């Protein structure tokens, strides 16, 4: 574990399995403490009910066993019977309403979106977790967060349904492809905690585990600054797009008449010769190197060739950028 100097040792709140048996993970958020309190209340109540019924059933079975001589006269009127049934149904129903309320109370708190959180993008993928911090710093399967700050995960998946489950925070939520789900928490205990995928997502499901490292706020800030924020291929492509002057013609409101490229990737393009072509990577590459080969319908053949002026790697970066022009960040792989 790479921890900046001055950081409290992570294993202060370690739940990474240095013991051979663990009953409750550490409770690292106020919500976790509330959940634990409620859970132990329920264990107490349910335990009491189970014990009482066991004792009653055991007592009745022994007292009224076949061999025993005992008065077995039993008669209750229908009316009395109904009162008895009502007598035990009503308290049960009221108790159940109380249980419902106690659970709902926590749940509503846990799933109301917080104001002004640190938002971290989460992408689930068979079988890894990708995290992107607000400044663009990225990490895989390990999530660094500051203590005492509300952190909201903005979660999506690129393939199947996953689930972010952090037992030390007593909270989880499914991560769905094609849409965004949110989960927030405020960690109040330094340490390193398990992160599990909790929705079966294929063969590697049980290996889709990670760690959440709760750090002091200053340590988190230092950590963020130390991260090299690499430009993604698309970001490099955007710079190239400007540097080579492409943006001069191919941007929506430029003076020179050239096709607007936003949203073009993957779509069919009508050509001047009456045919159609899909604007895939090969088409875009050809259009950069051999612009006169496939002229888009309605445009003149006046784009210069960039053959020899631009490297293959740069072309790929520009393609990544063009792809991104229509895909919003939700679907980014």
């Amino acid at each position: 574990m790479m921890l900046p100097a001055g950081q409290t040792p992570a294993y202060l709140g370690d739940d990474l399995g240095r013991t051979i048996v663990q009953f409750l993970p550490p409770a690292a958020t106020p919500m976790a403490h509330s959940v634990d309190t409620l859970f132990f209340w329920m264990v107490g109540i349910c335990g009491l009910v189970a014990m009482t019924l066991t004792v009653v059933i055991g007592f009745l079975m022994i007292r009224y066993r076949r061999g025993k001589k005992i008065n077995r006269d039993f008669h209750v009127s229908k009316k009395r019977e109904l009162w008895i049934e009502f007598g035990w149904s009503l308290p049960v129903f009221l108790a159940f309403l109380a249980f419902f309320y106690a659970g709902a109370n926590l749940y509503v708190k846990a799933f109301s979106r917080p104001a002004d959180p640190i938002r971290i993008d989460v992408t689930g993928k068979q079988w890894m977790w990708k995290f992107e911090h607000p400044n663009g710093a990225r990490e895989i399967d390990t999530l660094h967060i500051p203590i005492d700050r509300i952190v909201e995960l903005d979660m999506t998946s690129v393939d199947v349904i996953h689930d972010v489950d952090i037992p030390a925070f007593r909270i989880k939520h499914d991560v769905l492809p094609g849409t965004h789900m949110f989960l927030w928490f405020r960690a109040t205990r330094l340490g390193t905690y398990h992160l599990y995928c909790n929705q079966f997502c294929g063969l590697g499901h049980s290996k889709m585990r990670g760690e959440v490292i709760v750090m002091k706020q200053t340590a988190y800030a230092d950590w963020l600054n130390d991260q090299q924020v690499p430009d993604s291929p698309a970001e490099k492509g955007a710079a190239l797009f400007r540097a080579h002057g492409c943006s001069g013609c191919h941007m929506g409101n430029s003076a020179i008449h050239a096709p607007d490229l936003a949203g073009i990737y993957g779509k069919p393009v009508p050509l001047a010769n009456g045919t159609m072509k899909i604007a895939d990577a090969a088409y875009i590459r050809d259009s950069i190197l051999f612009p006169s080969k496939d002229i888009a319908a309605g445009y003149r053949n006046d784009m210069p060739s960039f053959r020899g002026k631009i490297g293959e790697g740069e072309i790929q970066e520009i393609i990544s950028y063009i792809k991104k022009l229509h895909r919003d960040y939700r679907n980014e792989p």
Partner: protein
Amino acid sequence: MSAAVTLPDVPPGYPEEHYLNNGFSLKSWLTTTDHKRIAWLFFIALTFMFFIAGAAATVMRAELLTPAGDLVSDGTYSRLFSVHGIIMVWFFLIPSIPNTFGNFLLPMMIGAKDMAFPRINLLSWYVYMIGALALIASLFAGAPDAGWTFYTPLSTQYASDATIIAAVGVFIVGFSTIMTALNFIVTTHRLRAPGMTWFRLPLFVWSMYGVAILMLLATPVLAITLLMVTVSSWLHIAIFNPAIGGDPLLFQHMFWFYSHPAVYIMLIPAMGVVSELITTFARKQIFGYEVMVFSMLMISIASFFVWGHHMFVAGESTFSALVFSLMTFVVSVPSAIKIFNWTTTLYKGKISFDAPMLYGVSFIGLFLVGGLTGLVIAMTGLDMDLHGTYFIVAHFHYIMVGGAVTAYMGALHYWWPKITGRMYPEMWARFAAITIFIGFNATFGPQFLLGVAGMPRRYHTYPDQFQVLNMASSAGAIVLAVGYILPLCYLVWSLRYGRIAPPNPWGATG
């Protein structure tokens, strides 16, 4: 196996000819329309499926002895728990009590000669067998590996091709369920003997009637859902596939709309059986007969409105989650009432402890634990912690195995003399009943603790701190396996060597 049964000494008062000896040929069995023989056909098929699924579970428990995935690969493990779940749910638990004991006893209990549609009854078995063959074919074609819940887009886009074959098998077996349900409803309505009014029906008959309604209403939804999964997988239609605009949550809603009532399809017959067991062995009428009937019907109806409690953290709205949580507590009230009524029935009874009664009492205990832990996870605020962990696994095994299978074993021993004309060995049976009770608790008790510790279900490998509890669970599974194999041995033995059963071995009065 029963074809070989001959009754050497016909006791006085017994018919010379009965359903077991009025034909020994294979044809006489495979073309029978006698509800009692059809019950046997189901019985043999279900037993076979039960032990396949049980074997899968045994290998899983062996794999989970160690944190590393060292016994089977991750692919094999996914297939083991998928096959275990699919077979246990659709090919054993759902038909378990209705298609065997329901088939055998329903006409007798209402004074009918047979089911209303004897040939549809036989057809139901053939449809079941076709579904089962499709499922077994899927095992040879690579085996399904997306879990018994078939969640999309995993099942449609990413799972093995055999997953869809298995889904087709489940689709087919659904029609068997529908046919049997239809038969039960019509039989109960139309073929009751004169004087057998609705409120004189044995509670077992009521439970068969209630479960038939559930089956008839819920199963078509499963069929539609699986059909859509199959079609969207083969033809690449969007329905559930988010990559082309479908909605995976829609699948979950439709799946649980069936699969939550399905839990009660397993449980209501079990409740019917236990009501018979408790009254017979306590020598007493059930306490609050009408309340038992109405609570059962309430469960049947209300269970259609709780499906969303499987999706508290799946992406449904907070409002839906709260409504489904509230409805779940509502449907729990009648279950609690039933437990109180069974307990009160014991009061001033004359209780004996034959094997069926041991199963009856262990049903109450295990169902109680399953029910109480169900309350815990019906609370939205606790489910967000426990959802998807071993706590859930333990909870539903207490209901489906501790509840439904225990009642099935109780029914098996209770009606064995009626069905075969032979007594089973009582001491062995009591020993097995106690072994199953101990083995069951030893297997699934530690899983509650595993869930509280945070271990997610369907994990092939796991962090080291879960090992001790997993070992305890696996050790319990050995005891449980012995408990289930014992009855198979002594019941088969008793077919030939068991004591001839007297006319009313339990001294039952109802």
